[in-house]
């Protein structure tokens, strides 16, 4: 099964059809996706700004980082669940969309980012309480750039037009 066929079969599931045709459920899921950015994106932002020493300087980095981590995980699950539902119900439209794949690549980069900085930054947050090392600041800046990129790509998916070349020639339509 090719990826295009997989996407098509996802879109054809009864759940996806029902969601696509619902005038109310679709915008509610989209709103939840957006609200997650506001609330849990705010937590990502605050954590990174704290690592950079720009906010809440009286609070130890590890305290804020460890306190917000479980909430950010909850937020991530809500955000991804909504995202899968939104893309899944219109999978055929998303498959050729290069901005969608840019967003998926950036999401994958978030995991690579977590792996890269795990041992040096995230595995031992208490090390940042005395003095925040340069590598942690690099991790914070790249994290913010990645999420800003994901947010922007998410919005831009709606503005992608299929290239003229991909539209089937008239001969194939007959």
């Amino acid at each position, binding site marked *: 099964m090719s990826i295009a066929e997989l996407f098509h079969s996802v879109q054809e599931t009864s759940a996806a059809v029902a969601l696509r045709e619902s005038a109310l459920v679709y915008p509610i899921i989209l709103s939840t996706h957006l609200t997650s950015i506001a609330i849990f994106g705010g937590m990502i932002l605050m954590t990174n700004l704290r690592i950079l020493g720009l906010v*809440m300087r009286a609070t130890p980095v590890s305290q804020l980082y460890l306190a917000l981590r479980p909430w950010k995980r909850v937020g991530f699950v809500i955000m991804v669940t909504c995202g899968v539902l939104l893309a899944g119900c219109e999978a055929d439209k998303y498959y050729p969309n290069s901005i969608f794949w840019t967003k998926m690549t950036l999401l994958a980069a978030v995991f690579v980012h977590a792996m890269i900085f795990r041992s040096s930054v995230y595995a031992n947050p208490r090390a940042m309480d005395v003095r925040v090392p340069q590598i942690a600041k690099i991790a914070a800046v790249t994290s913010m750039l990645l999420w800003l990129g994901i947010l922007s790509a998410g919005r*831009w998916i709606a503005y992608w037009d299929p290239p003229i070349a991909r539209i089937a020639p008239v001969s194939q339509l007959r």
Partner: protein
Amino acid sequence: MLVYDPATNPLNNNEWAFPLTECIHIASMALSIGTIALIDLRLLAPAALAQKPSQLLKDTELLTLAGLFLVITSGIVIWTTDPDMYFHNDAFLFKMGLLVAAILYNYTVHRWAAKRDPQGVGGKVVAMVSLLLWIGLPFAGIFTAFT
């Protein structure tokens, strides 16, 4: 008499300007709603954060203000692309009412409560109302587009 024609708006004449403004609008929600929600989280679940609500308020109030400035400014810019359409959109009108209510609530009741570090149910009610008001805004924003 001067008549504003949206067709002359740069956002309607540039492929990048409109989506970019939308991205700024969304990102500044994390700054505004995100920081307010942090105080609400602390009011609802005192064990979630070590800082007292009054301390969190002091730590975040400038960011909240900056976020509100950005989210409202970008919102106004989006609105100028088709003002009449928005004025005839019920979800948009509801959103504007909600925005006024949320800002008033935030700088009166919410601020007053957060400064007093409430322990009991009162603080939780204040936080729930705050969350409902602010979460209502992105919802009303999406429904503006679907109306």
